[in-house]
């Protein structure tokens, strides 16, 4: 009897506890729901596309070298505010993705009464150099158009490098080499000498060598396999022609003699062409080395590390 009473009291208290915990659970859900909706209302008020946020996001993209997307953010920001730092970064981003003309226009906007005047002028010259119109670059230097006052020597160095890439008479070696710092002089002197005395193969020499011994011109231009092939082909055709003539097969002899002459003449021509292609390779490799060196040196322009610090 007593046992049953205890059991029923236990059941009643368990039910009350369950009801109480259910109520707490529902209350917790309600509180969470209401608070989250309140917080959500607060975040809705933040405008992610405000000019300030666009600038922040643009800076983040710029420092992560995502120049393509940084351009869009800076462009939107610059519609509201003419900030020199943002314009400079905008121009740098444009230059980085190869939109040179737009970059130049934006650098020009910073040339006067701006804290970035000097940097913008240097970058202006760098972009002009990268456009590979070296004649225009030299005329800009000669006319001293927008030349950065404190960094004239850097632009002079860049100007000298246009002579290494372009097909133009080189300036005096002493003047050329002495305009560079001591640490760069040895490499610059090497470039100068290689430009002045390129290890080209003579076209005429290649043709004459092939005229003396078929294929020798190609061996001279380091096309060894083609040279030996030309020698064997001309030799075999000549031998067949000779053999036919000695055996009184005049028609066959004439035909093979004609083929031998064609092979001989074609090889002389091919040796001259091969020398030219060899020289084009030398020129290409030299220009590539010069461009890599300039890229390593950041075109003698100081790196703007302060922009991302």
């Amino acid at each position, binding site marked *: 009897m007593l046992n049953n009473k205890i059991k029923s009291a236990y059941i009643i208290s368990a039910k009350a506890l369950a009801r109480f915990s259910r109520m707490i659970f529902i209350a917790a859900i309600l509180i969470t729901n209401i608070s989250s909706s309140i917080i959500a209302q607060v975040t809705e008020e933040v405008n992610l596309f405000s000019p300030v946020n666009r600038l922040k996001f643009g800076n983040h993209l710029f420092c992560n070298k995502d120049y393509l997307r940084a351009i869009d953010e800076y462009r939107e920001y610059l519609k509201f505010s003419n900030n020199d730092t943002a314009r400079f970064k905008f121009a740098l981003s444009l230059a980085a993705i190869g939109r040179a003309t737009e970059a130049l226009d934006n650098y020009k906007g910073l040339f006067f009464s701006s804290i970035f005047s000097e940097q913008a002028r240097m970058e202006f010259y760098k972009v002009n150099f990268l456009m590979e119109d070296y004649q225009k670059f030299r005329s800009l230097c000669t006319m001293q158009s927008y030349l950065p006052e404190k960094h004239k020597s850097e632009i002079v160095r860049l100007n000298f490098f246009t002579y290494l890439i372009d*097909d133009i008479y080189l300036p005096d070696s002493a003047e050329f080499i002495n305009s560079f710092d001591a640490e760069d002089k040895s490499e610059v002197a090497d470039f100068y000498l290689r430009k002045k005395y390129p290890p080209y193969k003579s076209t005429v020499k290649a043709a004459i060598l092939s005229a003396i011994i078929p294929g020798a011109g190609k061996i001279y231009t380091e096309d060894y*396999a*083609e040279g*030996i092939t030309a020698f*064997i082909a001309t030799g075999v055709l000549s031998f067949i022609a000779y053999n036919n003539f000695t055996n009184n097969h005049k028609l066959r002899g004439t035909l093979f003699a004609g083929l031998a002459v*064609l*092979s001989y003449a074609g*090889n002389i*021509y091919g040796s001259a062409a091969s020398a030219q292609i060899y020289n084009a390779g030398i020129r*290409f490799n030299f220009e590539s080395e010069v461009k890599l060196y300039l890229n390593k040196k950041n075109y003698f322009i100081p790196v703007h590390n302060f922009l991302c610090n």
Partner: protein
Amino acid sequence: MKYLFIIIITANILCAQTDWVKWEAAEPSYEIPVSQERNFRVDNSTIGSLIITGATKIYHIMVSDVDGDNCPFYPSCSEFFVEGVKSTNLFQGGLMFIDRFTRDINFFKSRNKYPLHVSGKLYDPVVNYTLKFHNITYIPHDHIVK
């Protein structure tokens, strides 16, 4: 009516037989597939170009297409000849072609200096052999030309 019926039946059987051909085992072809479609248009702007392109087209139909696409270069030797003659003259184009032919028969098959064309062939353009140094487009051998 009887004959008409026989004709219809016979025609039907004949037509049906052509359908059976589709399901026969196909003869395997071991020819190297041609990487690009042939242009059979003959250039008749001048008598010279008519003769040269005409001869080349005959060569394509009679020899090249039967033999398969065997030239390792792009453009192929016959196209190289036509382009060479067009960009220079018959004599110089002829010499260019003979030189190309020697490079084609290269006994040692050492062709490391040529860049690859997207077709998988070795890129060897005419412009590099016209003896005009500034027209040469040097492309390193590890590049792929489109």
